[in-house]
């Protein structure tokens, strides 16, 4: 590395650096990245950072971190990965594998025989005084490894040694985030990714599927596995859903599950389907409000009982969190001797539990050099961590007194760790390369065939001045493990089980989200398109704006109000027509419930909750839409050109979404419900538009422009001209938009598709009522007869009005039936006496 490069990247003497060795030479494997750091301009770094930000947003990941709500914030990915060489990683992986085995044995022991406590290898109080120790989970059976997924936090010390800061054994997050980061970093630095030879992460899913399948009760050859999460509203959901999508399993929350007959069931479109294995992402103190009251997000009453009876396999086993209790760290080495008969390969950082008098003495003696953790009663136990630890030397006198008195009066609550100087690795802050320290959440999957250590992990940049575990920085870092010259890919045992076909199964909650996605996408598209049609027509024929109460303007704006959720018709103002137009457009785009922005907001948030049902490209589309919502909100004050561009930027991804839904989604119940939502919405909006524009009497000389605009908004003008080769007539328009079953925009077409979608839902669901309603609506159209080609004026308008009045209630009834019978949610839980 040249002096210039060293001047850009400074390291501290005596501190291990990942890229440069003690003499300032570039370590093996880092050459390409070092070269890149040297030659990359500030502008290019800034561009990469903003690309990384955009890619994260496109993954729906822009505003989430892996901790509890209090610390949730936007997070970013540092554009420079941390590289780990094959030799260092090999040693680390062996240590992680042994540690996973040890902690498995610790979980088994502490929820069973408790030899660790009776022998005094672990002081009984270290476990028994901890508020996180779940007594209700004692003695639960497990068909496979209790600790299927383990996620330690590792750092490299300034002396170059890797140590474990904390073991996460309950519901460790990180696996999904590691996959997500890799998908971003490999797109960010495609060339470097290839040249550096980063080991791919693809084996994780297969390893995890095999490990989970092993939890199925013995007689179930094709286990149904679900990812059981705390729900889309929670920050950890990103990790859960990203991993679930990679696994190909349903994401379910507490409301999707129920326990009957000692077994676990999934509510799937109004029916119950058996679940064999729940991949538990709900912390053990939330999992079962019946046995661990009051429970929390994701809880399922009776779940522990179903595990106890072998009616469901749960991984990790409830209660596994005990092995990650920080107070165990000082005793793990002896535990390893007792339980495995081996020396511990991967050391923990120096840790003291104040419940031991001699530890307490040491802590009080070395106070200023320590990081303090309150693991005690009443402390919030966040998902994947504890309350943020503090540096003792930074405490003010009052805080210092608090900790001293805590150590004095409740010593069992205090765990102390040595404050570490950490190794450094290059990163980029504000476009400048600099040295950072990173804490790595590793991922270890244990299955019947052994352990799989993910060659990578979810790194977090340590914020300066805070303990590594405080998770204050919110900057993630990808970890690239370099392939060694001789390293062969580690074979992953694929499970010897027939995968179950999940195409016919759909959790009711996901079904409902898809249904509303269909409706919201259609509404947003209709509103945006209608606004476009109105604005273009006005540009072409400015005279339409001559009179605020002119029939074209009045009817079109009434139609716009109708499709964008306004209550009541357009009041005749007699005011400035341009101002009226602008105000109406602004409210239709963003001014109320039912507006385009409102519908898009719902659309984007429902897609987040069903990530595993949509393709990666769909995600990107939603990233684009999400970015435009703000543009729509300021649409009212935008000039016509800007507004037109914004509308295009919204419309194009919406069209892409409907195209993807058609071309890239399996025609399972999910697609059917999405389509039912779209068809119902399109039919209802069409009726509203016709009612506002074509039904009211209009003088013949105004009809032409009105009819043309309506047909354009319905994408049917060109088709009309090809069919009728004439000016637009009342009858022709009605035929085109109402009864012509070959026009995908017509009412008849929507009804036909609805019938087909309803019939296409998996057999066994009761669809009689829904089918009969759709058929009744079709009968109305048949009775209305064909709207003739000739313009018979008011008679057609009256007929059209009758159609609207008869069909609209049927569509509303159908909507209620769909929602009521297929999405019937878990009835609300009430607490009995107790």
């Amino acid at each position: 590395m040249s002096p210039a490069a060293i001047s850009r990247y400074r390291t501290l003497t005596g501190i291990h650096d990942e890229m440069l060795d003690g003499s300032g030479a570039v370590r093996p494997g880092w050459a390409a990245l070092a070269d890149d750091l040297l030659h990359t301009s500030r502008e290019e770094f800034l561009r990469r950072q903003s690309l990384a930000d955009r890619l994260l947003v496109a993954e729906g990941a822009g505003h989430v971190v892996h901790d509890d709500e209090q610390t949730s914030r936007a997070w970013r990915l540092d554009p420079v990965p941390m590289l780990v060489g094959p030799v260092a990683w090999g040693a680390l992986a062996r240590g992680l594998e042994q540690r996973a085995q040890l902690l498995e044995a610790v979980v088994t022991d502490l929820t069973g025989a408790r030899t660790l406590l009776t022998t005094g290898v672990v002081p009984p109080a270290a476990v028994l005084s901890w508020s996180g120790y779940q007594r209700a989970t004692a003695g639960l059976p497990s068909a496979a490894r209790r600790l299927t997924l383990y996620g330690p936090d590792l750092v490299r010390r300034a002396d170059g040694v890797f140590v474990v800061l904390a073991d996460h054994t309950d519901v460790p997050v990180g696996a999904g985030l590691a996959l997500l980061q890799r998908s971003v970093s490999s797109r960010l630095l495609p060339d470097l990714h290839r040249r550096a030879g980063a080991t791919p992460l693809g084996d994780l899913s297969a390893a995890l599927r095999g490990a989970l399948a092993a939890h199925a009760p013995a007689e179930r050859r094709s286990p149904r596995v679900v990812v059981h999460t705390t729900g889309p509203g929670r920050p950890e959901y990103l990790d859960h859903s990203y991993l679930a999508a990679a696994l190909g399993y349903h994401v379910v929350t507490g409301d999707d599950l129920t326990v009957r007959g000692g077994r676990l069931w999934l509510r799937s479109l109004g029916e119950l389907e058996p679940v064999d294995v729940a991949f538990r992402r709900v912390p053990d103190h939330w999992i079962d409000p019946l046995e661990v009251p009051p429970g929390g997000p994701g809880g399922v009453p009776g779940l522990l009982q179903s595990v106890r009876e072998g009616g469901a396999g749960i991984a990790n086993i409830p209660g596994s969190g005990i092995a990650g209790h920080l107070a165990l760290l000082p005793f793990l080495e002896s535990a390893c001797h007792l339980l495995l008969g081996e020396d511990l390969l991967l050391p923990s950082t120096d840790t003291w539990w104040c419940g031991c008098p001699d530890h307490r003495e040491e802590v009080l003696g070395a106070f200023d050099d320590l990081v303090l953790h309150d693991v005690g009663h009443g402390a919030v136990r966040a998902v994947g961590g504890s309350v943020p630890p503090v540096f003792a030397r930074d405490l003010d006198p009052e805080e210092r007194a608090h900790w001293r008195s805590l150590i004095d009066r409740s010593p069992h609550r205090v765990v102390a760790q040595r404050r570490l100087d950490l190794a450094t690795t290059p990163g980029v802050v504000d476009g400048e390369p600099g040295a950072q320290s990173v804490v790595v959440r590793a991922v270890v999957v244990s299955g019947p065939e052994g352990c799989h250590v993910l060659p990578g992990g979810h790194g977090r940049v340590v914020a300066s001045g805070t303990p590594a575990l405080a998770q204050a920085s919110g900057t993630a870092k990808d970890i690239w493990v370099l392939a060694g010259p001789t390293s062969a890919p580690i074979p992953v045992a694929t499970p010897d089980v027939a995968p179950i076909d999940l195409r016919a199964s759909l959790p009711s909650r996901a079904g409902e989200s898809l249904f509303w996605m269909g409706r919201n996408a259609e509404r947003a598209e209709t509103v945006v398109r209608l606004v476009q049609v109105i604005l273009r027509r006005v540009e072409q024929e400015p005279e339409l704006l001559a009179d605020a109460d002119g029939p074209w303007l009045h009817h079109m704006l009434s139609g716009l109000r109708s499709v964008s959720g306004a209550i009541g018709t357009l009041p005749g103002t007699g005011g400035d027509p341009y101002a009226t137009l602008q105000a109406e457009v602004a409210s239709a785009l963003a001014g109320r419930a039912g507006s385009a922005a409102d519908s898009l907001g719902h659309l984007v948030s429902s897609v987040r909750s069903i990530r595993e049902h949509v393709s990666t490209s769909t995600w990107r589309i939603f990233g684009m839409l999400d970015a435009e919502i703000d543009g729509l909100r300021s649409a009212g004050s935008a000039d016509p050109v800007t507004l037109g561009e914004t509308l295009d930027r919204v419309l194009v991804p919406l069209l892409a979404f409907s195209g993807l839904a058609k071309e890239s989604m399996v025609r399972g119940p999910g697609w059917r419900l999405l389509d039912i939502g779209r068809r119902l919405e399109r039919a209802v909006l069409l009726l509203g538009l016709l009612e506002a524009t074509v039904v009211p009497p209009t003088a013949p000389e105004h009809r032409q422009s009105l009819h043309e605009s309506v047909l354009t908004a319905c994408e049917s003008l060109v088709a009309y001209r090809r069919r009728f080769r004439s000016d637009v007539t009342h009858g022709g328009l009605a035929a085109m938009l109402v009864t012509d079953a070959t026009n995908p925009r017509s009412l008849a077409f929507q009804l036909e598709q609805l019938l087909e979608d309803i019939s296409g839902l998996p057999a066994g669901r009761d669809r009689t009522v829904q089918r009969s309603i759709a058929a009744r609506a079709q009968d109305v159209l048949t009775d209305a007869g064909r709207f003739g080609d000739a313009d018979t004026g008011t008679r057609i308008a009256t007929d059209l009005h009758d159609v609207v009045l008869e069909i609209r209630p049927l569509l509303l009834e159908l909507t209620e039936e769909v929602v009521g019978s297929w999405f019937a949610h878990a009835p609300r839980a009430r607490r009995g006496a107790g």
Partner: protein
Amino acid sequence: MIPARYSVRHRTGHRYLVPVTNGHSVLRLLPRETPWQRVLDRAVHVDPEPDHVADHVDVFGNLVRYCAVERPHDHLEVTSSSLVEVLDPGPPPDGPPWEAAVDATSGIEAVELAYPSPLVPLLEDLTAYGAVSFTPGRLLGHAIRELVDRIAADFRFDPGFSDVTTPVEEVFAARRGVCQDFSHLLLGCLRGLGLAARYVSGYIESIPAPGMPKLQGADASHAWVSVRVPDWGWYDVDPTNPGATPVQRVTVAWGRDYGDVAPLRGVVFGPPGDQDLEVAVDVTRC
């Protein structure tokens, strides 16, 4: 003294004004065997007939029954009936100086019960209140009995004041509550000093002997405290009825606090609606 034999009948009736679609219950209503208590017969009857029933023993050794009614129902009646024989443990212990008992708090069984628990947090004021009786070198049994008498004298039995969710801080501040509250208070005092003590749920003889007053809390399930006395065993004391004799108590279950031993805990699913609760307990010497 000959053993006392009791017939116990504990009926809990729920009526749901809006029927529920299904419900899960966890019952700790079957009396356990102890060194001083023999269980001659025990049974729980649930109406409507549960669709699923399973038993297990919890980490404290209590008998737990899980029942699920998986069809719509508008009531749930749980009746526990048992026949038990209670032996007299002999005269109350004096024990060692209380500090020696604190030092002897080791081993899983004792350590399990020496730390704060969800319903019995460590409260400085409460520890100080209890510490008054624990003068240096005082024998453990004497200190406990004085503390129990003080609680009985300082606190008023008031079934209207608290329910199962009332925190012990409030009970301590208001100086009133029921057996459960007084037990939590006593546990807080003892654990604050480092002693091991458990919460016991059970029953107390409900028909007073001729000429004796009816005991408080006799018409419902009862709760008291058991303190570990080194080289003696677990010493039952009742801050609600300090005068009651050991043979007047039938033990059902024990744990760290009420949360570990709630006799009946349930979650039902259904549309929102009110529910009525009726509890009746009969403990008859026979």
